[in-house]
């Protein structure tokens, strides 16, 4: 990687951070307010902030002609999994008030995030290629012959 390419990657990273950090802060504040008693609409506003940042990130990718990097995908996935674990943890061991506050709004919010990712993948890659991104079984055949086009190989 030459100097200018590295600088470009860093500039893009800076822009991604500039989009996500304020959004995550506001989202955390609004969601927290909703969970401690503010109500479902605040949680919804918190998830809206996340979805706005996600859309901004997609626009960024389109403008700069890039895609989500491996690190971004991994971080996004890890945070989402952590959020889901916290969600089920709260449902299992949280008191009645927390369960009531969390169950519907956070559950719907998490489901909406999954929907947003699916919609993005379908729009960006089309249904077939979007599915192929998760088709690990197809990529799991190590035989050289599996790479032949008529055997469905695409590596």
């Amino acid at each position, binding site marked *: 990687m030459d*100097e200018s390419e*590295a*600088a470009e990657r*860093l*500039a893009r*990273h*800076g*822009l991604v*951070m*500039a*989009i996500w*950090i*304020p*959004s995550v*802060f*506001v989202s*955390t*504040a*609004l969601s*927290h*307010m909703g969970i401690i008693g*503010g109500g479902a609409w605040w949680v919804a506003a918190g998830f809206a902030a996340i979805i706005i940042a996600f859309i901004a990130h997609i626009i960024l990718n389109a403008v700069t002609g890039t895609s989500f990097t491996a690190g971004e995908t991994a971080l996004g996935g890890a945070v989402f999994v952590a959020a889901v674990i916290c969600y089920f943890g709260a449902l299992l061991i949280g008191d009645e008030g927390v369960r009531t506050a969390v169950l519907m709004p956070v559950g719907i919010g998490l489901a909406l995030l999954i929907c947003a990712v699916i919609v993005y993948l379908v729009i960006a890659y089309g249904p077939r290629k979007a599915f192929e991104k998760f088709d690990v079984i197809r990529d799991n055949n190590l035989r050289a012959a599996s790479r032949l086009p008529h055997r469905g190989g695409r590596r």
Partner: protein
Amino acid sequence: MTVILLSLVAAIGLYVLYFAARVARLGTRPAAFLDAGYALPSWSIMFLTPALAIAALGMQRHLFFVSHYGLQAVHLGVGLVLVSAAILLVWNRLWFATRVAGFSTPGEGLGRYYDSIALRVVVMMLTFVFVVPYAADMLSSTAILIERATEGFIPRASGVWMLAIMLAVPAIIGGWLSIVISLAMIGVLTVYLLPTSIIVAEILLPGQGFPQDAIGVIDGVLWDRLPGVIQYSAGIGKEIPAPGIFTTVAISSTSLALIGIVYSPVTLYLGQTVRAGGAFGITSVWLTGGLAAGLLVLGMPYLAARLGDGPLGFASSLFEFEPLLGAGFLLLLVASGILAVSFFVTGGTIIFIREMVLRYLLPELSPQGQRLSARIGLGFSFFIVALAASFAPTISAIVGSIALPMAVQLLPAILGLTFFAWISRGAILAGLTIGALIVLFTEPLGLVVFEALFVELPWGRWPLTIHSAAWGLVFNVLIVLLSSAATLKSPERLERDRFHRAMAMSMPAQGNWGRSVFWSVMLLWGFLAYGPGAILGNTFFSQPIFTDLEATLGIPSIWVWQILFWLIGVMIIWWLAYKVGLGRTTETLIKPIEMGSPDERRIPDWLSSGLTRVTKKSA
């Protein structure tokens, strides 16, 4: 509140440090530490500029004004449209001038174009005002806010040093690129937190708020209208007009002062070092004139109506409902200060190093040496700023108050460089001298010193409610026009003409953009938005002039006027950016030329002999 606020400030510090480390690890050539290779990412300038424009107003100061003077102070928000126009008019041409003639800094550009060392010195002095007193004042007021928010846990002096170290280390590590990239994120944070705080407060806090509740202004002040076209007052410090200080001439002249942020050497340097593209158009039309001005015009009245107990009281009210948002509102104020301090100290020091050290003191320095000298300079500058903010906050505030109006006095010089070849060196220097003197004597610095040494002056700060920037600029321009008329055929004109021809050839051809219609609309808009015509807005929508009927809007007429002329202003800026073509820059047509006398990088004789004497003694 204390723990959350300090954690958030620390998080910002870590973020800036992280980017500094990332930039340092890029391993770019050492000279890029100073100028980012003249290829700052376009998005960074897009997000940073609106935050700088808000910083020019001074977030804390603006909150004070709107909560004490109501909608007359809110009108200043429309002034950001003028800032946007200034960005387009000047940055675009200066960007081309930089590429055509190889100017490394604004001071070098003006100095070489007018062939004047004096002008370079003037720009250096102005840079100093922004770097030390102006930044020290910002740093001190931010530290005071932290002291109050933490109920004395972080005293003012400790806050000053804490912030100074937090900003100095990343600047020393990463240089210009890292600071601009990380401040851009702080700019986004600022613009994000302001509407969030307002919307949440409107939903949660008790009371009806604006417009049902009036803004709790000082007794006698007209909160929902402008207090006239002009007030015959001697000025702040002598007398304050009872109905308020924001007359139409006060608003237009204060808006003029705001564009000083665009003409400050550091901000000009930001415009010079950005890469080619459409950054100027997007930042001026949509983000500064559109978003930032819109937030101030639409959001500030709501905020002002709830600021009876000041920003800290407002933050405490929010904190009761959501701790993160309460601390977030204070972070918005702190971040605005941090952004201004970091930007001006880092950029100003880099300009100083390039103009002073690399040109005169150590002209033979290697690129690595240049970077080292910049790092030493940055450490020294932050130390001096922290020292001034700790031990001389009042002096810093007094001297810092001249920064913006003094920067505005550069306007004729910059217009000469970018547009009008007939403006001559002598005219610029004469105009600058008169303009600077008038600014000095209509601001506390000149008034305090003169009255302490000699006699009481009959006027105070901003006499007749006209800002010092406008007082100075009127006489400045007058002198420039008269002197230029007398020097139209001077021999230096040939060189300036050559430069302007080269610059015109380097820019894309402009189509038919309706020049006369544009300027007619611009003047009419200016007259009604800021000029004497703005007074019509007091009753235009509540008591229409062509009928005896009264309209019941439910909101003050002047607010509707402000919103209307803000929107029209955005359209005018859009015209300037995209129809006139000032919103885009491209390198495709650029043909560099040699401008002025060769850049002699040699040590002045007096300095050389002084150095020799010292080194011989030590030997």
